[in-house]
């Protein structure tokens, strides 16, 4: 025992190196999977306040561009509103009120890492919870993984653990969307049944299966169809409709019946 302690003390530099590396790697590996990042993300009000102060200054740049986007979106919403009035259907009242939208501002984000996140200026005080969807004015953006009283942290679509259930809009076939860590404007459509031929420009929308995003939110359009990687499934490249680099304002989507649906499913899985 004594010799062991003497040995360790003699090599304290190397021992400390091993301890610190083991500690770092444990932290890193633990935060790597999607479910772990739901519990271990380091969102808190301290980092939030610092980024907020920064954003207060930096936010003035690009206001003109931002205004333009908001005006465009308003126009779109007015159009949608009009259609809804003309096609009121009492059967769908439940479905329509199932999702509750909140607007939020992105106060910090990145696109150049392998795992990217968005920091939003609303937190549990404003009713934010984990596993809410985040969409920009043009399409899907991410999923909330951490909430503090005043801020929330969302895993961007540009993240290795992100896998969004989607549909090909023209024929309703189910596929999945991933990001391969290369270009922040492009992602991959995987699990396409190989008898389905995709063309350039085909829209890919959310399937609604995950209960995080409502059905039919645009994710992007196909830019290149790659022939089957194996016998049954093929892949395609998708251009994301959200510009993650310039995104400033987003909407968070709360699914009010998600908990109910999850509990029900869990009951029958076990």
């Amino acid at each position, binding site marked *: 025992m004594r010799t062991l302690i003497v040995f360790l003390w003699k090599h*304290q530099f190397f021992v400390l190196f091993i301890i*610190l590396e083991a*500690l770092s*790697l444990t932290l*890193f590996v633990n*935060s790597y999977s999607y479910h772990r990042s739901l519990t271990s993300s380091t969102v808190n009000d301290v*980092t939030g306040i*610092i980024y907020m102060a920064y954003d207060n200054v*930096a936010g003035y740049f690009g206001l003109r561009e931002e205004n333009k986007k908001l005006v465009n979106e308003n126009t779109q919403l007015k159009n949608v509103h009009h259609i809804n009035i003309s096609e009121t259907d009492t059967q769908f009242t439940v479905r329509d009120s199932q999702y509750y939208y909140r607007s939020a501002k992105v106060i910090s984000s990145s696109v150049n890492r392998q795992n990217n996140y968005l920091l939003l200026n609303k937190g549990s005080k404003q009713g934010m919870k984990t596993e809410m969807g985040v969409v920009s004015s043009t399409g899907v953006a991410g999923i909330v993984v951490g909430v503090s009283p005043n801020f929330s942290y969302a895993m961007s679509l540009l993240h290795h653990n992100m896998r969004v259930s989607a549909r090909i809009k023209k024929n309703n076939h189910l596929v999945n969307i991933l990001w391969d860590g*290369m270009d922040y404007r492009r992602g991959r459509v995987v699990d396409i049944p190989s008898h389905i031929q995709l063309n350039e420009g085909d829209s890919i929308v959310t399937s609604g299966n995950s209960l995080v995003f409502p059905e039919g939110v645009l994710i992007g359009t196909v830019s290149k169809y790659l022939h089957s990687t194996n016998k049954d499934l093929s892949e395609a490249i998708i251009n994301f409709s959200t510009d993650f680099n310039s995104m400033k304002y987003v909407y968070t989507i709360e699914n009010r019946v998600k908990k109910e649906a999850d509990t029900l499913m869990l009951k029958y899985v076990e």
Partner: protein
Amino acid sequence: MSNLYVRNIVRFLSLVLFQVLILNHMNLSGYINPYIYILFILLLPARINKSMLLLFAFLTGLTIDYFGNTLGLHAAATVFMAFTRLSVIKVFFNNVEFLTGDEPGFAKIKAGGFLKYALVLVFIHHSALFILEVFDFHEFLNTLSRIALSTLVTTAMIMIIMLVFTPVKRKN
């Protein structure tokens, strides 16, 4: 002596803030991610207690991780770099005599020597960082080019910072 502490604390704070608030938000294509905060570790006194060096590296990395939500990633890479720092100094500057508190900066090892020293350690740090970040070995060529490009940009930025902040010697 207290001057040494003050200088290092100011250096730590300004490098971390610059990294977190400005560089982390800059998008110079996905291949180039400069991480200049490691300059703090490069400039710690050459004869600093080795274990202290590792602890400082760990804390610096963890601070960066804390702001970027990459828990453990930068800590692991920075500790690894700090671990190799002593050998790098030994190999390159065996004939330079460092007194207690002497930093391996321009004054001691000249700009050329510092460039060599920074380039090697930045490369070590970035290799560990980017390989860990990707976490797999397919597309390894892609990771390699990220390492190479980012190493060059980080080293260039570190040299610029050193040139700007190294006081010019007064001639008597």
